[in-house]
């Protein structure tokens, strides 16, 4: 163990918070290095003096003050009846969930155009079959005598089909 590492651990060693595995190496170094030993003694002295003073100079309430403080704490208040339900998950889980949700939505947004094209796009298989069925309902009519116009909304998928005869007059179809 070098001096730099030892000096980093000295504040904790002064308070006996060093793992047992490191103590032996530290003690060996302190026996060999007078500068580190001096620093360690200095930590011990300052800590000892401070602890001593903190123990000696403790503040206390006057009895009537203490009782008054307790009365104030109790006065006009009752302990909460129902504790609020604490969040059962860790924050990390919440953030991971939000992250996954964002990724899923992004993927959906990227994939979506192909889905919509499949369901509503002009020239799609579904649309052609429906259109053919409409023509099949009136076999007596000649295909050349009827023209159809179809409008499809890309946003809503709403379809409007107009049938026009050879004179371009609108025909009503069931």
């Amino acid at each position, binding site marked *: 163990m070098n001096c730099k590492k030892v000096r*980093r651990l000295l*504040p*904790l060693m*002064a*308070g006996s*918070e060093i793992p047992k595995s490191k103590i032996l190496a530290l003690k060996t170094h302190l026996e060999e290095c007078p500068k580190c030993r001096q620093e360690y003694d*200095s*930590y011990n*002295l*300052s*800590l000892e*003096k*401070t*602890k001593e*003073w*903190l*123990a000696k*100079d*403790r*503040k*206390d*309430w006057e009895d009537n*003050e*203490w*009782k008054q*403080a*307790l009365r*104030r*704490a*109790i006065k006009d*208040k009752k*302990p*909460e*009846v*129902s*504790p609020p339900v604490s969040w059962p998950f860790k924050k990390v889980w919440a953030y991971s969930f939000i992250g996954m949700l964002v990724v899923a939505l992004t993927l959906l947004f990227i994939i979506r155009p192909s889905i919509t094209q499949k369901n509503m796009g002009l020239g799609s298989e579904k649309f052609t079959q429906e259109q053919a069925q409409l023509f099949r309902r009136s076999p007596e009519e000649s295909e050349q005598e009827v023209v159809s116009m179809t409008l499809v909304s890309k946003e809503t998928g709403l379809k409007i089909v107009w049938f026009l005869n050879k004179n371009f007059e609108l025909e009503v179809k069931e």
Partner: protein
Amino acid sequence: MKSEDELVEDVLSGDHRAFELLLQPYRQGLLSMAYRMTGNLEEAKEVCQEALIKVYRYLRRFKKGRSFKSWIYRITVNSAYDSLRKKKKDEYLVESQKKIDFSAGHDPEKQLLNREIKAKIETCLQNLSPKEKATFLLRDGEGFSIQEASEILECSSISIRTHLSRARKKIREQFEKINFADAKEVRR
């Protein structure tokens, strides 16, 4: 002699006397902690009052089997943080620290050892950040373990070790500085 959990039950069932019994062992510790955090006795009493109100109000949230001492210290430390934040105490502390430094040099009673040590340690503590101070006071002042201190301050034990290490380093440096300054004065 009733256990703390039993006393908590009594308080929750409306026994006000039990509340006093429950807090009696900590009255000195809580006030001392608040005083060291704020640096002012009156303010420390206000912090403690705030903490007592919270303890009583949220007593039902206390989980049985856990340390009541750690719980009330956490409430007190958080109240002290709030107080420091509200009054921009950090700035005030710097000012009061300057006052201490100045007064210590001209105090006729400086000769008295206790007063001298008191002034030195006060100065050392004032130089710590609120988190370092809280960690140092809990571990070295109140004798909590690293684990307990990490529960009270709601941070990892690694973080506690880091703050504690920094606090002790600063205190040692301040100690050396003051000793050095005193030695100079003596030489003159």
